[in-house]
């Protein structure tokens, strides 16, 4: 069948399947398989469908998916986050805007030990949102702060998104991690600025309500002062927090282990932390491991679907046709990049981040290469967009996670989250296009290649 016609049919089918509510991995699998059949007939299937599931999964680099998730699970179930938040709460007593700022910074720090934004957001939602509300933040703003703080795990290394990109494009994961550091901090800073803006606006709009809440807060603080967490326990928590971050980054950059192995070592340290904090029992393992297998299975199923879909995309020669189509624009790479970012931003609004990365790479990577855009820079760039997409409606997994654990309606969080997202998107993406060095400079000095 004519390949243009097939591509048309498949794109239409994909959109229909997505709208109908088909699982993302099934959309990819179904479109890929049906596309291959239309293009080549059934005879092409044994060679691609038979071996791809195994080939995709049997990858040493991908051990990072279960292991970074496992590390995050061990840490989240160890009670470390609660303890650290307790300290933050003490520090910011009386200075209410500081609490919001510190919550986002903690989100960033948690990002440095967690690879997945959703899990971190859920845990921040549990711990931070009640505290923020006691300090006079409205429910939606508190929810948005927790969602945004959690989403930072997606860009601050280690990050599953960066790992997936690295695997799909054969870019060294270590270089991606280093490259994402500055943009990750930038996203955090823009979130803080947006948060302060919303906080001021809320305070101005309803000073009365704020006062009432402040009174409640004062009472709550007095109450909290009584239920003291022992200092020794807090000391262990802080110490272990530092040890985990130091182990992972120190280990990677001193050459003790590779970024891939960091997932395993980090998990063991996470487990030790939970042991020291006295949280290890059968339920601890059950909860951590079940969650790990679930997330791993989810990512891998989507990866398998994306692999099959990618084979269809390759055989249809779609990327080459797109490059030809874009030929008049190729002379101005910035314009093409803008177009790609807009498409990705919209896709990240609707679809889970890892899935978007995996389904668009077969199409976008050849274009990026033809534009001679740095592949590492592009990976960091789309990870930024992906992170921001975690807090945009209609599909913002971070917001759903927070809404799920706090009961605050996701719609009201999204209203503020969208503000965070648009501001951060314009500032960080704008800066990254204007100064690509923001992503490429650190990797170049650390490898000595610059």
């Amino acid at each position, binding site marked *: 069948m004519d390949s243009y016609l097939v591509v048309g049919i498949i794109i239409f089918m994909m959109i229909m399947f997505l709208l109908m509510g088909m699982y993302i991995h099934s959309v990819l699998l179904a479109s890929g398989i049906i596309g291959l059949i239309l293009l080549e007939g059934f005879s092409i299937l044994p*060679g691609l469908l038979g071996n791809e599931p195994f*080939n995709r999964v049997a990858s040493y*680099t991908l051990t990072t998916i279960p292991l970074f998730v496992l590390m995050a699970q061990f840490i989240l179930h160890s009670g470390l986050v609660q303890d650290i938040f307790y300290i933050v709460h003490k520090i910011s007593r009386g200075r209410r805007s500081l609490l919001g700022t510190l919550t986002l910074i903690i989100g960033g720090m948690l990002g440095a030990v967690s690879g997945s934004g959703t899990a971190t957001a859920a845990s921040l939602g549990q711990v931070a949102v009640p505290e923020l509300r006691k300090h006079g933040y409205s429910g939606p703003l508190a929810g948005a702060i927790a969602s945004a703080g959690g989403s930072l795990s997606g860009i601050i290394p280690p990050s599953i998104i960066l790992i997936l990109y690295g695997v799909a494009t054969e870019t060294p994961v270590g270089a991606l991690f280093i490259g994402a550091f500055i943009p990750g901090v930038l996203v955090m800073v823009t979130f803080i600025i947006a948060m302060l803006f919303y906080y001021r606006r809320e305070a101005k709009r309803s000073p009365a309500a704020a006062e009432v809440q402040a009174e409640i807060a004062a009472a709550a603080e007095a109450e909290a002062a009584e239920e003291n967490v022992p200092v020794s326990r807090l000391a262990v928590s802080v110490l272990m927090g530092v040890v985990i971050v130091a182990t992972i980054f120190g280990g990677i950059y001193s*050459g003790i282990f*590779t*970024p891939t192995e960091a997932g395993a070592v980090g998990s063991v340290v996470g487990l030790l932390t939970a042991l020291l904090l006295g949280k290890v029992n059968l339920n601890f393992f059950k909860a951590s491991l079940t969650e790990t297998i679930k997330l791993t299975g989810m990512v891998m199923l989507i990866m398998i679907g994306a692999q099959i879909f990618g*084979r269809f995309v*390759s055989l249809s*020669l779609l990327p080459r046709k797109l490059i030809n189509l874009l030929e008049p624009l190729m002379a101005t790479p910035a314009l093409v990049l803008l177009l790609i970012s807009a498409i990705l931003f919209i896709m990240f609004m609707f679809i889970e981040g890892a899935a978007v990365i995996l389904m668009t790479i077969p199409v976008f990577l050849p274009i990026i290469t033809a534009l001679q855009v740095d592949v590492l820079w592009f990976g960091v760039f789309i990870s930024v967009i992906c992170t921001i997409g975690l807090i945009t409606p209609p599909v913002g997994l971070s917001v759903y996670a927070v809404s799920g654990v706090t009961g605050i309606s996701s719609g009201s969080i999204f209203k503020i989250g969208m503000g965070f997202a648009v501001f951060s998107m314009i500032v960080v993406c704008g800066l990254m296009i204007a100064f690509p060095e923001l992503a490429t400079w650190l990797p170049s000095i650390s490898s000595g290649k610059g």
Partner: protein
Amino acid sequence: ACGGETSSEDAASAEGEKITLRAATGLSPQHAWWAGGMEPWMERVTELTDGQVEFETFVSGELVAVPDEAEAVENGTVDVALVLPIYQPDQFPMAEVTMLPLNHSDTLIASHAWKALLESDVELQDGKTFTELQFDQFKVFPISTTQEYSISTTGKEFASAGDVKGTSLRTPSRIHEMYAKQTELNSITMPAVEMYDALSRGAFDGSFYSIADWTGYGFQDLFKYTVTGINFGHFNAFIGMDEEKFESLPENVQEAMEQATEEYFEDSAQIWMDRSEEVKKMNEEQGGEFVDFATLPQDVQDHFNEGIENTWGDYAKLLEDNGLPGTELVKLWRDLMIEQGGEVPQKVKDM
């Protein structure tokens, strides 16, 4: 087998009709085997057939990843591919023979020996030649081997045999594993994309690798110490097509493919030699050092040489244990190498 609904299948019978063949490699398009081997071959085939045959190419694993090319050709996913049999010792256990270590050879010597081995009519077992035993399902178009493999480290030097023992090197094949065992080297395995990261941070000492291949992973900036003048074998490859598929092509196309192979064979070897010179220069500018094996202390030389001798025997025995004509094969390879100007230790000559 089944070529599916590729246009070539339908067009095969009618002479002069357009034939589009799907060609693939898991390697990058800059790789010497593609850029200097398969790509010129395809261009020449198109030329020789006056545009009757065209190739639709897929590189960098876009369609088929390393080392699945052989399988993809067999099951008809692609029509023709760059096959790297050494990566699949379970399917092609005898293909590793070109990785046997030697005292001397270069890309041209090894390439000619490899071509001679593929075309050899010496019956190794049950009246079958090397190619019949290993690659019966393929139409094989020989291309060059890689340049010889060397040992390079990020700084560790071999001042005595004791320095060699315990040095951790990445080993790319089973024969290097055997060699590492013989010489008490520590063998490390890891994906090539992770190697730069791990090496630059000192996770291990170095690797067996061919100098011309360094640039693919940026090793020219990394290795500081390379021993030349001893040779840890040559990786091999060929352009593979399904035998039946080939037979179904018009005669003029078959002839064009054979002719293109003959014309481009030597050039496909020369590109390795040229690249190696370039890379050496780059590496020296970065402070890299190339040390001739003959200038190393005698005990180091003896240690390495002893390893070479024993590895030949070990590999032959491994094949024999699996019911394959190991001894016959290594002897044939030895003779072909010597014929082309290669050198092997006395003990290997006496085998």
